[in-house]
């Protein structure tokens, strides 16, 4: 005899297999619209547990384990690892058995949207101008910038070399102020 569920606003699809034969109580319920059942998952196998099935096992440390059936519970007590049993969802996930569905869901669409608002740092006109720029023009401007940087670094190098020469020339005067020999003590 099926016991009516006390749990709240859920509905169940009563398939033909569920109904006991010839009970008038259930003839009315068959006409019922489809409902949505809240199912839980087995802690060991990962399979769905419908209401009225499964056993909740509470350990002394307070951990709860919901098992779909005695098979799962027994294997758990024997300390078998679900990842090693081919029929569990954990195994299937680890061995990537249901990948197609997952991959299909994860495909992202790269949407390019045109700029409609100005961003901090640039205004809308600058963005529009950059967008309208031709690739050749962009390349040319980039090369010009690179050339400028190269010239600047070259100039810096020559300046530094000149400074070094000057320092050497004035080297004798500078000894008193900057002992380069690492602090040699003059005992005299």
């Amino acid at each position, binding site marked *: 005899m099926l016991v009516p569920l006390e749990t709240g606003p859920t509905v169940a699809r009563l398939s033909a297999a569920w109904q006991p034969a010839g009970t008038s109580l259930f003839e009315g319920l068959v006409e019922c619209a489809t409902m949505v059942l809240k199912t839980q998952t087995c802690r060991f196998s990962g399979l769905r547990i419908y209401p009225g099935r499964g056993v909740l096992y*509470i350990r002394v440390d307070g951990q709860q384990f919901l098992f779909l059936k005695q098979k799962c519970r027994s294997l758990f007590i024997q300390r078998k690892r679900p990842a090693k049993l081919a029929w569990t969802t954990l195994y299937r996930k680890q061995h990537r058995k249901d990948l197609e569905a997952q991959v299909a869901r994860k495909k992202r669409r790269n949407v390019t949207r045109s700029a409609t608002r100005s961003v901090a740092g640039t205004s809308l006109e600058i963005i529009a101008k950059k967008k309208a720029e031709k690739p050749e023009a962009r390349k040319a401007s980039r090369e010009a910038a690179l050339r400028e940087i190269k010239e600047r670094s070259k100039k810096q190098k020559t300046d530094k070399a000149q400074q070094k020469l000057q320092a050497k020339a004035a080297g004798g005067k500078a000894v008193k102020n900057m002992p380069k020999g690492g602090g040699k003590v003059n005992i005299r």
Partner: protein
Amino acid sequence: MIIDGSRLVVTDNSGAKEVECIKTRGRYASIGDIITCSVKKAVRGKVTQGQVVKAVIVETKKEVQRKDGSVIKFDRNSAVLVNPKGIPIGTRVLGFVTHELRARQMMKVLSLAARVF
């Protein structure tokens, strides 16, 4: 499924640690039933070893079924010492209790419990 002779762990601070069931009402006792027991192991507290007390069963290894079809079972058999009215002797309930106690009017035990399943 506690019967005469079952040992239960006491999960309150009444002083008793282990208790042996000496009388059940009917053949088997389950969660929510009050049983008469004899204290087998006790530490300093309100009860001493050898005392005959009443206790309410709060955890059983045997599954307990509920009206919605769910089944619950624990790792051990345990009890909380109460007086004949159902009020606990101790001041704290350290283990787990279930909602079955609500139907048996064991509100005080429920309120003291840290975790109700």
